[in-house]
């Protein structure tokens, strides 16, 4: 770890000023990913701007449009166990609790969750080639250990996946990310927040260098009646998703009137296919219909050898998760010990 300067700020403008004048400065909130990256010699901040004193961004509160605003500095734990989140957005609560460990969730912030970096082995090893870490150096994952890698939206340069659970639920909920910069404030639709690797795999998202995430707003529809989050991984806790699925739906007279399906663990960003969701509208919630939608979602999926199984597993996971969403009671802790 290099030597660095540490500064604690108590107002947003101060934070933004400090970061915009210093391109080797990083914000730090929970630090659950940055400190790891630093120890692995992958991040080298010269200045740390500690934003934990920005109390305005810690709140979780109802907004004026019938939705809920999640402060960027509220912890993942406080969010998952918040009464309004549990009641109105249980999908989000469930996805957050499927991730990391209690200790990490207690420290990790909501804003930080959006910015966590891939867990690709090659990215994490400073001495391996990696286009994301060192553009132009190559991607050993394509012909190497790619069991955990992407099957959709990949590029010649990068097949890494985005590791978050929380963000998969946020994608399904069609959240909006609020950011602030010295130039003002803007809102980014969740589907536009994260990027596909293309030929700039070094960029994970569309946040600009001088911007600070202030919060995430959730629309009024929380799918509190019919939702499910399914995470498939190599052990029952504390492992990143090989495939995860967030489903929220609204049913009327046993017909789907609205449905959102987002996938994690299979692409560089939370994966949604609007056409598949539209296909399901006005249809019965049957295994057959869900399977057709799953095929639409996985259209164009491509494996790299060791991750070929993810294509079929994703389809099955979508179907299973949509079925589980019909009966959220089946997801009570203990009811599904194997998931």
């Amino acid at each position, binding site marked *: 770890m290099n030597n660095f300067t540490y500064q604690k700020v108590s107002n947003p403008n101060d934070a933004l000023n400090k970061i915009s004048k210093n391109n080797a400065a990083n914000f730090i909130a929970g630090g659950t990913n940055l400190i790891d990256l630093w*120890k692995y010699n992958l991040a080298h901040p010269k200045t740390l701007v500690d934003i934990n004193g920005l109390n305005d961004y810690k709140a979780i509160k109802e907004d004026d449009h019938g939705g809920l605003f999640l402060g960027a500095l509220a912890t993942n734990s406080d969010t998952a166990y918040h009464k309004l989140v549990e009641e109105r957005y249980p999908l989000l609560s469930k996805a957050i609790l499927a991730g990391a460990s209690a200790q990490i969730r207690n420290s990790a912030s909501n804003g930080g969750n959006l910015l966590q970096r891939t867990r690709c*082995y090659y990215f994490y090893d400073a001495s391996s080639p990696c286009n994301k870490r060192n553009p132009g150096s190559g991607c050993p994952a394509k012909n190497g250990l790619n069991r955990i890698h992407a099957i959709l939206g990949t590029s010649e340069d990068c097949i890494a996946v985005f590791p978050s659970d929380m963000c998969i639920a946020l994608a399904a909920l069609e959240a909006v990310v609020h950011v602030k910069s010295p130039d003002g404030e803007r809102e980014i639709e969740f589907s536009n927040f994260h990027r596909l690797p293309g030929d700039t795999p070094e960029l994970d998202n569309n946040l600009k260098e001088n911007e600070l995430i202030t919060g995430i707003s959730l629309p009024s529809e929380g799918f509190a009646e019919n939702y499910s989050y399914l995470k498939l991984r190599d052990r029952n806790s504390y492992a990143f998703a090989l495939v995860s699925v967030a489903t929220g739906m609204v049913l009327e007279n046993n017909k789907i009137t609205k449905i959102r399906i987002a996938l994690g663990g299979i692409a560089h960003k939370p994966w949604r296919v609007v056409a598949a969701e539209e296909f399901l509208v006005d249809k019965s919630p049957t295994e057959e219909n869900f399977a057709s939608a799953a095929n639409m979602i996985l259209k164009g999926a491509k494996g790299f050898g060791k991750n070929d199984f993810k294509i079929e*597993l994703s389809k099955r996971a979508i179907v299973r998760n949509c079925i589980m969403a019909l009966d959220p009671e089946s997801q009570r802790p203990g009811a599904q010990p*194997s998931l």
Partner: protein
Amino acid sequence: MKISKQIGKSVNRLEGHLKVTGAAKYAGEYDVPGLLQGYIVNSTITKGKILEIDESAAHALSGVVAIFSHNNRTKLPWFDIMYADMDAPPGTPFKPFYNDQILYNGQPIALVVAETFETARYAATLIKVTYDEEPFETELAAHLDDARDPKKGIATFIKPLPPSANGDFEKAYNDADVQYAGEFIHGTEHHNPLELFTTTTVYEGDGKLTVYDKTQGTSNCQIYIANVFGLHYKDVRILSPFVGGAFGSGLRPQYQLFLCVMASLELKRNVRVTMDRAQMFTFGHRPQTIQKTRFGATADGTVTAINHTAIAETSQHEDYTEVVVNWANMLYPAKNTLLDYKLVPLDVFSPMDMRAPGGSTGLHAIEATMDALSYILKVDPMELRLLNYAERDVSANKPFSSKELKQCYLQGAEKFGWANRKSEPRTTRRGNRLVGTGMSSGIWDVIALPAKAKASINKKGKLKVKSAVTDIGTGTLTVMTQIAADSLGIHIDDVTFEYGDSNMPLSPIQGGSYTTGVVGSAVKAACESLKKKIFKKAKKMNNSTFNSVALEDVVFEDGSMHLKQDKSNFVTFKEIIADNDGKKIKASKNNIPNVLKLKQYTRAAHSAAFVEVEVDEQLGIVNVTRAVTAVAAGKIINPKTARSQILGGMIWGISKALREETLMDHNLGKYMNTDLGEYHIPVHADIHELDVIFVDEKDDIINELGSKGVGEIGLASMAPAIANAIYHATGKRVNKFPIHFDQLL
């Protein structure tokens, strides 16, 4: 006062409160004045030569004290023998910083010593190394044709090569009514104890060192350091009072010990070197192994032909071997056998013993093959084992010193409810999950080695026993204290067992499940020796009532010595020592096993595991919902710590069958999942109902305690039972560990 016997009692760990309160100090927690911190730089190539190490940027950093590499290392001995530790396989031991050659990816090539750990770690990132790379080979499967016989050495004594062929296997196999042939693939695993390998060297001056090290053998490290650095043995003191898990990784001195001592000697300063988690993947591991079996049986279920071959990786510099294929014929008395074990040298570090080395690998192939035969024969899997029960070890033509495996089967099956099992696969469902049950036998040999202990008793009647042995978290301290208390017949609170210090009487490295038997026997022998001295002193006392009595006629219990025939004729230890002018009575004993007697018997612990799994076949999810392991391991000194050992072994079995795997990119020659986030060991959510049974077993042959040890036997039978249960649930036999989604979809 009546003092109860301690052996057989579930005594709580004597050091437990120190560990859970954080008061127990580990090797990296000794703070000494002016301590410098070292950080290791590892090779990023797999094979070749170092051309240049540019240290300028690192040296320029404030706080950096020194940088060591092959360019400026201490003068080292030329001869391999000086680097050979007690556990060195045949070959050339790895010599850190010896020259510019790179033998494997992750090889230590430089050490930065600085005022703080963070400075050292940062400076290490600034060192630029230029290499001349050479082609390398790391993939076992691609080199099976290169397999050759292992070299023989001292290690072969404890790890015998396969017995020679018996009968005519090929004919018997071809003539057999039923046959099963399988191929079994095991990848690399790393020990990953929670405690990182760390050494703190205290420079005492005059060539004297006190070294706190994470190790399974203080005497082993003492000899190694003295030999390598040309020091007197008595000037090197290795201490390892607490060890945060090791599982075999501490059987050999690891390179941080070498580097730390070298830096300390060169700088004449106190130095600490700590590995990080990724560096824990840069020394020994469980080797990749590919096995083949062919078993044949008659229609009534008698196994007549056993062929078991294994090809394992080793390094280019040492022939590390395991006992993989010797077990089948010890368990099942087929008359026609063909057993073979070969090695392929690859560009990796030497493999190393990892909990149940060889046994946990070989038993998977053997027990899955037996399981497969049982389905072909339509015989219950346990019934097939009972049909082929070996009352005698036909592979060595020797009787067993004791063997209660049959009771393991029967009592384990009873507790598990095996009788209610439906024999056909894919016949039980629970919701959308298939349910299956499977079982397996387990076996692990009992090793006898010499060990020494000292015992003394003081005027307060307090007994002190010493041995250089470590306690790697298994409960050794507690168990030795129990043994000593019972030997002398005193209260456990009056016994102190001192250990983990190379200044104490020589002990073998702690491994192979033999510590309780080996060191426990030495402790008992030292106490017996002490009893003789106490007896002699008692006879010399004024008005002694024991003048005409022989040692056989007295009993040591309740803190005193009394006549066997007349309990009222007694003298307390305190009285005896008071009469000895209050001077301690001391005894020392080097306990040497009776090899001539031992070699007449096959000596082994046994187990039987019964497992239930649930498999969500659509999604490929497997859960071990319930398991029972029944163990026959001779006398159980402490049922509580022994049970913990078996539970740990069972959880490791779950890990081995379903979770654990070090992934190597063979294009880079490098292990890639080198952290505990990606090296998956089970978490709490993976563990459900586990149960342990100890079957009564009496053994007068193996050692003075009749104790066989329980470190490995819990693991040996668990992983194959899981694989067999998955077959019963799904009808799919997956012979590659760990079993993942990919193979079950």
